[in-house]
């Protein structure tokens, strides 16, 4: 008897739920209902991981953190220009927890778990170091936590694996060096020799290999006159500068960054390497505001995309430069632009998901909305075109330092060339190495 009662009550409850569900579908089908997804939260909590100490803090980490600070304040206040003029994310304010990226990959994995499991952030925007990106990406997948990589360069992330919960809102390192190779051959079509001085770890080795192979693919008779790999943070380059002065290559390529780049520039100045060879600095934009008058004319400068001094003169960029400079008294450099891409990408994805579901979206819905989007940034439109919609491509720009501008405190850049995204990024489904080796199939260049 008792058993039959239980059965009856279960059956009744199931019938009740079915009826309610049917009613919800019938009522909600045309536009969806606000009650279908999670409740609208009081805030969107974002963990932002960037170098706040160590040698990478001053050139990259701090400018990125500064960009996050000023952009999120402006967005929360509803002062950002269209299409980002809605307060916060779809009206919900953003709150940020900053984490220092220093300490190595193991520590970052632990910090990521803490952010997701203890701090309960809605997503993490982070990582300048490629080693940290490679270590944290599988953990994001395991925890089903949304991770937006904002600055790391390695092409391995989406070329060797695919992820559901991981996105990268800027182009990976291939565009720097393919762009540099195309640029140098455009301004000096007759060059016959190149050399490189790059830091002896993955970033330096990969950057030089991509540049050297791209130049030789585009102009096979170019000779390589020296490949130098001093240690990271070596600081003392007199022997390498002597060797480069002696070898007399027409072009010297370097992907040095931060203190190493500045030390190299200071040390070659009285020895006039820059007069004997054209220097190509793939991350040169970061040192322009800091070196000011001590920069040199005639140097090819890149910004790992159309960022910093090479960013387009569009309203969103003018606004970004102005709010950033007003607060920090210096213009933003490329890591600041990369951070802006991550923030605007996240805001676009959330708000698109919200429009699609007609209520506050779940994480899975945000991810579905994020995949393959195109969104506007201070560097121009960014398209999530590779890695099945998880990896952005973007154009790259290069220019030459010409004349010191007392108004800006920097050298003006001339002969600026912007290579479109489809010209400097491999097509979907092809690795960077294969793309260069096969002579850039599918590249669309002006």
């Amino acid at each position, binding site marked *: 008897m008792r058993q039959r009662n239980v059965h009856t009550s279960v059956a009744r409850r199931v019938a009740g739920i079915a009826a309610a569900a049917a009613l919800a579908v019938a009522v909600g089908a045309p536009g969806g209902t606000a009650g279908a997804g999670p409740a609208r939260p009081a805030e969107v909590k974002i963990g932002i991981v960037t170098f706040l*100490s*160590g*040698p990478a*803090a*001053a050139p990259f980490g*701090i400018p990125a953190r500064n960009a996050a600070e000023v952009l999120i304040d402006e967005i929360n206040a509803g002062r950002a220009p269209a299409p980002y003029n809605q307060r916060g994310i779809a009206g919900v304010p953003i709150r940020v927890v900053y984490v220092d990226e220093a300490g190595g990959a193991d520590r970052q994995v632990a910090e990521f778990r803490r952010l997701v499991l203890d701090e309960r952030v809605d997503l993490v925007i982070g990582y300048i170091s490629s080693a940290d990106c490679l270590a944290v990406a599988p953990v994001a997948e395991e925890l089903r936590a949304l991770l937006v990589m904002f600055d790391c360069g390695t092409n391995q992330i989406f070329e060797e694996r695919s992820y559901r919960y991981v996105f990268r809102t800027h182009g990976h390192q291939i565009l720097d060096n393919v762009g540099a190779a195309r640029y140098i051959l455009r301004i000096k079509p007759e060059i016959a020799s190149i050399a490189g001085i790059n830091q*002896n770890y993955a970033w330096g080795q990969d950057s030089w290999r991509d540049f050297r192979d791209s130049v030789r693919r585009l102009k096979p008779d170019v000779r390589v006159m*020296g*490949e*130098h*790999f*001093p*240690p990271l*943070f*070596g*600081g*003392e380059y*007199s*022997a*390498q500068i*002597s*060797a480069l*002065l*002696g070898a007399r290559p027409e072009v010297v390529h370097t992907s040095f960054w*931060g*203190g190493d780049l*500045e*030390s190299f520039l*200071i*040390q070659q*100045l*009285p*020895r*006039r390497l820059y007069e004997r060879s054209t220097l190509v600095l793939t991350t040169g934009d970061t040192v322009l505001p*800091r*070196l000011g008058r*001590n920069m040199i004319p005639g140097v090819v400068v890149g910004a790992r995309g159309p960022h910093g001094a090479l960013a387009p003169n569009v309203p969103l960029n003018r606004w970004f430069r102005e709010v950033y400079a007003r607060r920090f008294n210096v213009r933003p450099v490329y890591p600041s632009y990369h951070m802006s891409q991550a923030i605007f990408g996240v805001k676009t994805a959330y708000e698109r998901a919200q429009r699609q579901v007609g209520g506050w979206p779940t994480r899975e819905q945000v991810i579905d909305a994020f995949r393959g989007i195109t969104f506007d940034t201070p560097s121009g439109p960014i398209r999530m075109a590779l890695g099945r919609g998880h990896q952005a491509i973007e154009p790259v720009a290069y220019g030459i330092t010409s004349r010191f501008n007392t108004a800006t405190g920097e050298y003006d850049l001339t002969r600026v060339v912007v290579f479109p995204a489809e010209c400097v990024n491999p097509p979907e489904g092809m690795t960077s190495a294969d793309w260069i080796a096969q002579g850039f199939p599918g590249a669309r260049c002006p």
Partner: protein
Amino acid sequence: MTTIVADGLVFASWLFLVSAGLTLIYGVLRILNIAHGSLYALGAYAGASLVIVYSQREAWPYGTFFLLPLAAVVVGAVTGPVMERGVLRWMYGRDQVLQLLVTFALFLILEDAVKLIWGVSPYYAFQPYTLLGEIHLADVVYPGYSMLLVGVAACAAVGLWLFTSRSRLGRLVVAVIHDPEMSTAMGVNLPRVYVLTFSLGASLAALGGAFTAPMISVVPGIAVEVIVVAFAVVVIGGLGSLEGAVAGALLIGLVRSAAVHLFPALELFAIYLVMAAVLLVRPHGLFARPEARRI
């Protein structure tokens, strides 16, 4: 060939300046001071700050060359007694692992102190670097400053040699190196010798930093690379030996320079190749003192 020797000498001078203090401190105090890299960084920051402040006054530009050793002396005089009397004197005769851990802790504390005082933004003090004109050797231009560096290292080496062989205090230091117990018995004021030696070693580290400052962008983290190469130099030369530091610096400097010019791919490897080769033949380094067996 000329450029290989010139580059080798310039690098060897830098190596000697950053490692002489380390070997001196080990020789007397028997402590392998990991915080030596931080003293170098303090010297670089202090030197850069003085040069920047001085250069803003549009004074006699060559005055900056006197500020660099001044910075080194100030850093040595301030940090030496504080570190030696405040921390290290409790460590004499203790387990070497403990000594290493304590100096590593000092290194971490000083790294943070540098960031607290000077922040994380880089400092440029390149004014002295371009003042001394240039020298043409073979087909290559060298800044006069590089030759100054060689001169400073040579002066430091000769000065240290004169100090240890000619001055009374220097002879006391040598006596302590050879036999601390007997020296004490003969009336040597051991604590005083210790604090003076540590301060002198700290000043040498800071001198290396101060004279490097005009060539680099002075940023947090410069201490780490220095400590690694300084250890390589003193291990090759024999811990505690000044002649060894000279020989180790010259050997590494020349081999590394040859590698950069002839086999650039081996550059990073060169230092460790030299170290391995020397230690295979002489496990205690080139100029290691024979240890007297005590009965």
